[in-house]
């Protein structure tokens, strides 16, 4: 969906037309879901925070100003809620230990898509997975990824290339 179309739905929502919610959800769900997943690295908590993100978005929709892309705006809400949840979890149960499950289908509802994605991603370590998710799905730039992951830009570029190499190999084996 184009940014212009998204803005139209946002305006509808701001006018109180809730029918626009479904369209906005579909247009932003991937960005929101993976923004949270790369922070929490746990599907179940990610779903809870995703729900919170959309509710918070609806509660604050009147404050949104179109000069900023809507995806970036809702992404900030998602990121803030996810970081909050991360800190809360860290306080309650110590350091989250879900990194091993990052992008693994962990519950019964996991779809075939999740298994395929896992099949591809199983060749990568967690940091490589994060780089791939941020670059490929969230479309973040390498320099932004470097900042968020607190690593040198060269390391991120190298990790990305290395991850692609592993994925090529994995995909090749799947096809054989």
């Amino acid at each position, binding site marked *: 969906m184009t940014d212009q179309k998204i803005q139209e739905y946002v305006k509808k929502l701001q006018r109180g037309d809730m029918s626009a919610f479904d369209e906005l959800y579909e247009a932003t769900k991937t960005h929101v879901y*993976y923004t949270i997943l790369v922070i929490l690295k746990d599907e179940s908590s990610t779903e809870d925070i995703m*729900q919170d993100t959309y509710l918070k978005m609806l509660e604050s929709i009147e*404050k949104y100003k179109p000069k900023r892309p809507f995806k970036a705006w809702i992404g900030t809400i998602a*990121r803030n809620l996810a970081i909050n949840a991360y800190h809360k979890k860290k306080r309650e149960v110590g350091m989250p230990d879900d990194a091993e499950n990052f992008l693994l289908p962990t519950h019964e509802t996991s779809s075939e898509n999740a298994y395929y*994605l896992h099949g*591809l991603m199983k060749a990568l370590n967690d940091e490589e997975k994060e780089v791939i998710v941020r670059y490929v799905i969230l479309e973040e730039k390498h320099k932004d990824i470097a900042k968020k992951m607190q690593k040198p830009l060269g390391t991120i570029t190298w990790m990305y290339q290395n991850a692609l190499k592993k994925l090529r190999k994995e995909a090749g084996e799947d096809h054989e």
Partner: protein
Amino acid sequence: MSDQKIIQTIRAYAEKDVPDLKTRIKENPRFMQTKRPSIFERILQRPVPVFSAFSFALILIFLFITNIPQEIQASSSLYMEINPSIQIDLDEEDKVLTILALNTDGEALILDLNNLKGEDVLTAIDEIIGTAIAKGYLDSERPVVLFDVLSDNEERRDAVTARIESRIPDIAAQRLPNLDMVRGNAQSRPDDVPNDIEPGMMMRRNLINQVLDLYPDEYTYDQLSELSVVELRRIIRGDGPPSNPGENGPPSNIPPR
């Protein structure tokens, strides 16, 4: 498979794998609360009641505007970090104006307090510590309460701090002999503090959450975590809403570090 093909495949599968939470979101009571007609629709649907209510409000404002008592500004604020985190705003005579919870445990603690408005700060501290003990917040082997006083007026701040510090041993001795009340620094920033138990850190975390509740889209957690408690409180009070938030660093009226 080419790199481009791999990227496209990941994007396609990742998109399909995102759970559909629309129904769950719509069933949430918070969704129903946001489902409201716009002000214009309300006026168009029911113009007479809306305009009547509007006129009535104007009349009320006109009648009472000169008689509204001015809100008494807090002369100083005492922060207490028990694990419930609370903020006590004081007037010039160290009497309690308001008690605010800075986290959920703080809310639970406040619910059990007697009405302390107008009471002296030392009475309030005594009551708060007593309630915290009763609720089991201070039952560790070496319980610690961290506190700090903030005020725009340095003399006031020092006077309140000195008064509290001089009476703390008595309060602690009566309530809990092994209790330590330690002064922290609510103005400290993350870089200034050695570890996570510093009260400024805890207060800041609570205040960051409050700011994010008020401005969920305008600040990032990282950005707020660089501000002091005083700066965060300014934002919460409305003295420092973002000029161009989120993207361009802290608001301009927050003093530079």
